[in-house]
Each structure stands twice: as structure tokens, then as C-alpha cells.
């Protein structure tokens, strides 16, 4: 038995560390298309102190550490590129709500599922921004990759809603970021001080392990509803989004397109979500949405469709299971998407490319675009299914996604949760001084280069 293994057992207890082939196999992969690479150990710490000890051990032994939430980002961000330790965070599951201050402090492995049900049960008037990833996805990892959720249209990236961090630095010190560094309250991730949260958010665990995170909570209205808007002209979508977001009344706006089912063919479906504390409030918002788009109604270019009340539960569900079901539409157990964050005005070009690549590589496609922050940008997904049992479809999907990423960058977007190859594309285009700064920060924080090596490596 190696020293590292024995020490890890001492740190977390023997039930929570494994070096066996089965765990190494599973933790060496994610559901996406990046090639596997197995860790040497999988460990599940329970406390910040345990995380610290593991990090100190890793520094001493010069082995890599990859923090992992649910591993659902699909782009291989939790695949340990040079082996080492995968740190599965899911046993860190503490939740502490500050009701008056409208924020929650979650430990590093709390899932969206757990927070959602905790709030529903104990604080039904508060909510957080739930992404459509499967519910086992963790709050921290989602913020680490700048995820987006149901409240992103109104409030920005889920990472914009962070209100403080506790981080174990790559060298093992625990560090607090934001108001919680000075006060016992976690209301701000930086302001009015220098905002150091940027040293950790977006870094894919390469600058430390977040052990606790403050997340803003928002009013949970008593009612929600969803409206379905349809147009067949991609070029109108940017303006439709502008008009809808101008109302400042929509909870969320998501535009989808796909060749199947047939009711999707040749049209774009926009799901427009609204909330209210009374039927009157909802009705007012419905009317505002109608009024905002009256021009296209008159010109017959678009209109709202009735939504069967029997369809609403699945459309209103958070997260949306339909997003996950996409993985099985070709009965192959897989899909992946490249999801650039992009100017909304590029919607028509992106859709065109999406379809072009699908036909070039003979792939089934879909796209969902979520409006970010009142219309400053969108996340546009180029999603393709593949069959896990058919390497050829996997290759084709991978190639299509690579091309989509290049295209998205050329058209002014920035790749979201980029895989290694996409990170390289981004860094190649990055302002050289910015790139240098990135490298300096990384070197400063992680002198031994142990944290999630391979990612954001500015050469």
C-alpha cells in the first residue's frame, strides 16, 4: 500500500478513499467526448481541514489534485489529465441560510438538488438560480464554470450571484474572500474591497478548492408560468429578445431550435417564463410580453401559442429533464454541447452554422440559447448527440464541436466551460498581456502546479 493511499485514509477515513480499478475507471471519465485519463486515487473529504491536509499532502508528494462536483460539465474538466487525486466534493454538504440577508452559505459539494429542496422546505419565499443540468450538479462547480440558471436572465451568470468564498489555496492555506474576510456576514464577494473572487471563479479548480461559497438568494414568487413564442425568422430573434428583456419582467428567456419533433421543424421556440405573487401580476406580465411583440404579431412573423396545461409541469420543472433526455434521442447515451457566451445579435449566424455542421457530419442537433443578464449576451449551445457504442459518431460529434467552437470565437463569442482544446483556442486569441497575467497569477497561487493540471495553462 502506497504512502499516499495510507495517508489519504488517515485523513478522510478508509471508507472514503479508493485506489481501486472501478473508481479509477469511473472517475477517469465524464459523459462527454474528451478522452479518459484515470486518477490514482479518489478521495471524498468531509471538512475544510481534510481538504487542507489533502492539498498539503499533494504538494509534498507533487501529485495533482482535481476537485470534482458531479462531473457534468461534459467538457472533461474533471478528468485528471496526469492522474493524481480526484477530490469528490459531495460529502461536504452543509447548508446555512441567512434569511434576512437573502443568502446561503453552502459547502463545496452541495448539490442544486439539495439546496432547492432545503429552500422549498424551510424558506419557501427564497430561491436560487437553478441550471438545467441534472440536479446532482454542485452549486460551487456551477459557479466555478460561470454557469447560468433560471435567474440568469435577470441577475447575470450564477457566478455573479456569489457573495463570498472560503478557499483552500493550492498551498494549503484557508482564505476567505469578500465581506466574510472582514465580517461574519457573507453579503458581497468583493465590493467595496478589491474583488478577489475573480482569482477562483472561472478557473476550473486550478487556483484552489472552494470549500464554502456564499450565494445570493432571491424572492420566490408564489406562481410561475411559461409562455411559448414562435417565429420562423432567425434574424428577428435578437430584436425579439431585446423587446422582451426591455420589459424587465421576464424570469427567463430560452430560444430553442431542433429538427425534431416535427413541431420544432422550421421554427424557433422561445420559452418565456414569468413569475408573480398573484394571478393579476402574472396576467400583467403576460400582457407586457404580448405588447412588447405586437409589431411582429401584426406582421404575422411571430406569435404566442397556447401551451397545454398538461405540458406545463415539464416546462416549468427545475431543472428541466427534457434537456437531459436529449442524450437518449439517438439511443446512444450521449450528447455534448459547445456553449459560447456570445453577442445576441449573432443568433442567426450561429443557428446557420449549427445546422450546417449537423448536415456536414450527419448528426442530430439541437440548440438552446439562454439570455444572460437582461440581454447583454446569450449562451448559445451547439448540441449534438452521439452514440457511445459507435466511435464514429463520437468522432464526428467531436469534430463538429471543434468547428463550432472556432466559428463561435471568430464571430465574437467566448467559449464557455471550454475543454482543453478550446482553452487553447481562447488563449491563442487572448490579448498577450492578459495571457501573461493569467500565467503569473497561476504561478503565484500554485507554485507546484498541482491543481487540475492542463487547464488554463498559459504557456
Amino acid at each position: 500500500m502506497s504512502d499516499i493511499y495510507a495517508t489519504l485514509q488517515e485523513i478522510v477515513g478508509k471508507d472514503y478513499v479508493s485506489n481501486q480499478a472501478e473508481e479509477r475507471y469511473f472517475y477517469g471519465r465524464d459523459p462527454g467526448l474528451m478522452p479518459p485519463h484515470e486518477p490514482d486515487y479518489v478521495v471524498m473529504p468531509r471538512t475544510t481541514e481534510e481538504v487542507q491536509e489533502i492539498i498539503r499532502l499533494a504538494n509534498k508528494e507533487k501529485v495533482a489534485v482535481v476537485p470534482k462536483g458531479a462531473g457534468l460539465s461534459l467538457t472533461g474538466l474533471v478528468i485528471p489529465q496526469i492522474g493524481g487525486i480526484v477530490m469528490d466534493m459531495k460529502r461536504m454538504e452543509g447548508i446555512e441560510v441567512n434569511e434576512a440577508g437573502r443568502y446561503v452559505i453552502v459547502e463545496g459539494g452541495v448539490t442544486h438538488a439539495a439546496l432547492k429542496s432545503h429552500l422549498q422546505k424551510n424558506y419557501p419565499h427564497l430561491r436560487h438560480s437553478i441550471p438545467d443540468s441534472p440536479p446532482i450538479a454542485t452549486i460551487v462547480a456551477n459557479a466555478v464554470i460561470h454557469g447560468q440558471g433560471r435567474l440568469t436572465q435577470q441577475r447575470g451568470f450564477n457566478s455573479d450571484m456569489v457573495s463570498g468564498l472560503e478557499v483552500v489555496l493550492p498551498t494549503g492555506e484557508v482564505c476567505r474572500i469578500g465581506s466574510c474576510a472582514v465580517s461574519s456576514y457573507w453579503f458581497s464577494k468583493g465590493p467595496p474591497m478589491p474583488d478577489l473572487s475573480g482569482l477562483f471563479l472561472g478557473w476550473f479548480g486550478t487556483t484552489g478548492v472552494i470549500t464554502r461559497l456564499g450565494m445570493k438568494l432571491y424572492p420566490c414568487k408564489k406562481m410561475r408560468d411559461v409562455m411559448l413564442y414562435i417565429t420562423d425568422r432567425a434574424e428577428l430573434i435578437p430584436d425579439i429578445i431585446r423587446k422582451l428583456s426591455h420589459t424587465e419582467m421576464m424570469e427567463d428567456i430560452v430560444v430553442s431550435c431542433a429538427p425534431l419533433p416535427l413541431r420544432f421543424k422550421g421554427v424557433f421556440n422561445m420559452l418565456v417564463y414569468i413569475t408573480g405573487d398573484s394571478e393579476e401580476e402574472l396576467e400583467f406580465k403576460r400582457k407586457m410580453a404580448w405588447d412588447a411583440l405586437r409589431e411582429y404579431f401584426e406582421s404575422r412573423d411571430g406569435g404566442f401559442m397556447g401551451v397545454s396545461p398538461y405540458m406545463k409541469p415539464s416546462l416549468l420543472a427545475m431543472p428541466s429533464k427534457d434537456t437531459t433526455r436529449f442524450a437518449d434521442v439517438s439511443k446512444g447515451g450521449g450528447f455534448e454541447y459547445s456553449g459560447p457566451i456570445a453577442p445576441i445579435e449573432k443568433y442567426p449566424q450561429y443557428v446557420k452554422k449549427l445546422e450546417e455542421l449537423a448536415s456536414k457530419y450527419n448528426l442530430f442537433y439541437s440548440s438552446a440559447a439562454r439570455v444572460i443578464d437582461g440581454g447583454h449576451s446569450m449562451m448559445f449551445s451547439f448540441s449534438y448527440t452521439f452514440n457511445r457504442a459507435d466511435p464514429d459518431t463520437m468522432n464526428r460529434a467531436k469534430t463538429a464541436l471543434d468547428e463550432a467552437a472556432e466559428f463561435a470565437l471568430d464571430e465574437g463569442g467566448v467559449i464557455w466551460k471550454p475543454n482543453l482544446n478550446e482553452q487553447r483556442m481562447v488563449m491563442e486569441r487572448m490579448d498577450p498581456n492578459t495571457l501573461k497575467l493569467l500565467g503569473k497569477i497561476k504561478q503565484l497561487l500554485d507554485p507546484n502546479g498541482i491543481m487540475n493540471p492542463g487547464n488554463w495553462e498559459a504557456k
Partner: protein
Amino acid sequence: MLELKFDKTKCADCKAVSCLVKCQYMHFDRDTARTEWQKVVNGEDSQVLHDCATCYSCEEYCPFGNHPFYLIVERQEEKGILPAPRPITTMWINQCQPIGRFTVGKVEEKAMSFCFLPQFGILAGGKLFEDIAWSSIFGQEFFCNAVYLHFARMSVIRDRLPKVIENIAKQGIKELVCLHDECYGTFTSLAPAYGIELPFKPVHYYEHLYDKLKELKDEIQPLNVKVAYFRNCSARLIPETDHFVDDIFGLIGVDRVQREYDHENALCCAELIRVSKGPEMADDVQKRNLDDMLKAGAEYCVFNCPGCWDSMVEKVVKTGIKPIHMIDLCKLAIGEEQALTPPEPALEV
């Protein structure tokens, strides 16, 4: 090519112009009605073609069976007038397009058509269907396509309907009980209006229910309730079936309340009015209809069409009136349960 059997001379001689004068949604005096209708007949542009709510009612109002509504739809399409937004029209056309998937049960010479409405799978059970339950057809291949009357797409109907009829016949069906009266209307009104012959006999499901209830007479416990009947657009194609409503109500001890918006004067569910004319008009129509039911003291609102059910069910529930489909109402009378129930409020907050 299939052509509408329309007789210009009937309209020329018509004094009443009931088609337009009685219209619930456009308000013409007799003279303007005549002028506007002549424009439609002569293929000129008319306000009618733009303001028509596509409620099908004029098919019932015309005493000569001259198919004024079908003519409106033809003319709208000729002129490229879109009653509903184009993408919604496209969506409808694509969604119901035949794809070669024949969803059939163990079909016999007498069969039921579920149209393309899954609700009928829920409704068509129990004793009322005990001798036919398995013999059903469903889906695009058997879809009557009448819905395109709302979208100025008679061309789609002309194109698809003969094939649909052929598909039904190919199943060896001789007698088809139509659960959606839009199908029955298509086969008994629309098809003959275009000279399409039917190789099978369509039966309205009300007739089936009526016959079945008579057989089960001993099991009927009169319901003794007051109901408002919700008449739907396709009922206008087949007013001759309306008596079954009263016949059935008579058998099961139900009182059809007297109200302003019933029979010829009925208001439609307005869901397609919402899509085509906007929410103001739709809300007004729905509100008038609901207020009228309340005023008349209805305990139940009885639906014929699952489309109306979907668009109205939640609003009916809010008034305190109980929504129920006609089939379910008959089931209650023989001690069975309501199968199609209002949705749970979908909140997910």
C-alpha cells in the same frame, strides 16, 4: 384537383345573408353584409377575409348549406391572407404531417378514431366502450386535418384528406366512430363539399354513447345536475348532431341550463382567436362565456372537444364550475369515474 362545390347563385338570391349577419365576431348590418359577402364570392378583397375569427359558425348559419366558411378559407389562401402568424401555421402543418406511423389497436370493421388527440386514449374506457375499446386508430395518418381551416390552408386539407380516408379504408374499417367531432365534421361536411366519397360510414360518438347508454339503462343513476354545454367550432359543421346532446342529457338526468351562448349563439373556446387576433378579444370571449355559465347556475361545464378542454379547463375550475368531458359525464351516470381530470396547478416555484 378537388374543388369546393359552391353555388354563386344561391348567395346572389339570398336576402338574409345570415352567414355574416349572425356572425358573433364581426358586426355587419344586412346591407354591408351583402356587399362584403359579394366581394368574397367574387374573389375580391374584403374585410371579412381579414377579420374572420375562423369559428366555423357561418357553416351552420347558411340555410342553403352553401359552405360560406369553406369559401372564406379558400379566398384567404388565394390572397395570401394569414389568419394566424406564419410560424404558427408552419408549426401546425409540420406537427401533423404524415410520417408513416400507423398507431392502431386491434382494428375491426367497426373502429374508433382518436384523431390525433391522446386524451381519447384516456377517455375511451369502461363499459361505454367495452365492445370496441381495442379497435382504435390514432395519429397523423388518420388525422382529419380540418384544423387547417383556422390557418387558411385548405390546400393542406385537399392534399392530405384523400390519403387519410384511404388509410382508414385500408384498415378494413367499415364503420368509424369519430371521437373528435372535427373528424365527423370532416367526413360528413368537408369531404362532400369537395366531392370526396367515403368508403366507410362515419358515426358520431354521441350516437355511440346514446346507444350504449340505452343498453345500460338499468345501471344509470340520474345525475340530477345542471350543466352548461360547451359547443365547439366543429359542431358548426354538423348541427344535425346537436340533438344527441339533449338526448343523452335526458337519459342521464342532466339539465342543460338555458343560457345566452348556447346552440346557434355559442361562443367558441377562443384559443385560436388568441393566436390569430390577440389576447384582448380572446379574453373577452372567454369571459363572456364563463360569466354566462355562472349566471345560468351551471354546476358542470361539459366539453365535447379536448382542444376546448385544454384551453378552458383551468379557467373553468377557477369559476368553481366543474369541467367534464361528455364521455366522462356519461361514465358518472353509470357509476364510473371521471378519467380526464383537470391538471394539477403547475407551479414549480
